[in-house]
């Protein structure tokens, strides 16, 4: 951007040149803002959780209740692995490896689906319901909120997977994979936080 005293007011023909911030793509910025709002949403649920547990000195889990730590642990491993396959998919398309892209996205999708189905199965066998007590409400709220995000992530992944099988995306243009990837990693990190605080600690 350069100017000169003599021609600072020089005549300009046609529309002004497009000026877009060069450091971040607006679509990535949109995802950033969306995830920022999501962090606040999860933050409110975690606040409720810690309030019930710490301030009220509520025993966790309450006597007689049992959390399926092992099954959830296996589920955690599945979800964490799906982040690696997601990263593999994106790395592959950046290198022009379409087979890697398709395999990575398909694996990520199926691992995410496995996680969600396992969580639904866990709900059906857990032995308490959301309206039993504050513990149960918080448990279902936190894990359910996360499950909903996994579901949305699966829809994004499904779209990206279908597009990859239809020949979309190139090493230069792969935003349709990049954005679901950022979202999926966010969902993964949130589950790690949920699993550690709700199941382990």
């Amino acid at each position, binding site marked *: 951007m*350069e100017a*000169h005293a003599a021609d600072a007011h020089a005549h300009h023909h046609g529309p002004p040149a497009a000026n877009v911030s060069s450091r971040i793509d607006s679509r*990535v910025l949109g995802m*950033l803002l969306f995830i920022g709002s999501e962090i606040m949403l999860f933050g409110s649920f975690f606040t409720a959780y810690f309030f019930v547990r710490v301030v009220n000195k509520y025993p966790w889990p309450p006597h007689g209740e049992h959390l399926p730590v092992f099954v959830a642990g296996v589920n955690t491993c599945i979800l*964490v692995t799906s982040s690696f396959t997601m*990263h593999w998919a994106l790395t592959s398309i950046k290198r022009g490896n379409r087979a890697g892209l398709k395999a990575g996205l398909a694996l990520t999708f199926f691992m995410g689906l496995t996680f969600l189905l396992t969580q639904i199965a866990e709900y059906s066998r857990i032995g308490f319901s959301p309206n039993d007590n504050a513990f149960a409400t918080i448990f279902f709220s936190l894990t359910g909120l996360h499950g909903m995000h996994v579901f949305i992530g699966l829809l994004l992944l499904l779209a990206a997977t279908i597009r990859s099988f239809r020949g979309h995306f190139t090493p230069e243009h792969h935003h349709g994979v*990049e954005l679901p990837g950022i979202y999926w990693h*966010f969902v993964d990190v949130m589950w*790690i936080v949920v699993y550690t605080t709700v199941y382990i*600690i």
Partner: protein
Amino acid sequence: MAGRGTWNPLRSEQEAFQFVIGAIAYFGAIGLASALGGIWVGLAVFLVLTFGGVAWFLNRNRHLGPPPPVGSRQTPDDEHRVLVVANETVAGRKLHDAIRRSTVGRPSKVLVVSPALNSPIRHFVSDEDKARRQAQERLDRSLHALADAGIDARGEVGDADPVQAIDDALRTFGADEIIISTHPEGRSNWLEKGIVSGAEKRFTVPITHVVVDLEAEAAEPVRQ
């Protein structure tokens, strides 16, 4: 931007993935400690990792030491080149006097750099359109003010960091002298941030610091 880069885990999938790896290590250690040693051990690991992580983040570039001094690109022998870095004070008479003193009686070229000052939030999300537009408007006004004062200069919008803006200009324009214009002590954000002292440490080119008190100048009678 040179120096400390801003790491944003949501800028790209690559960085988000690194964030996942960090989260696995962080929460994995806390969870393992809690499972093996109980909640207090878990809390201790949490505190150690959290404070350790914050300390590392704040000090991550300290061990690198100061960067080597930066010189200017070669300038023509028969021409004196002056790089002026100023923002609101560019209309100040003291600055004009300093430029005139520097350029009088010899062939000279003056480049005015107007840093695109931005808020930290906007900088973080790389939203610099407005900052650059405002810097361009300031620059246009500045060049007119200099032209009115009889000084022929051209200008550029520079980086949000004034020191980096100088660095960039030295690599493209080159300069025999740098003039940095600021508000007086106490009112100058640049002085508070140590821009002038930072530039003196970083560049080998002679630096003249001009303090412009716009309020005092406005109160003075206009010189003919």
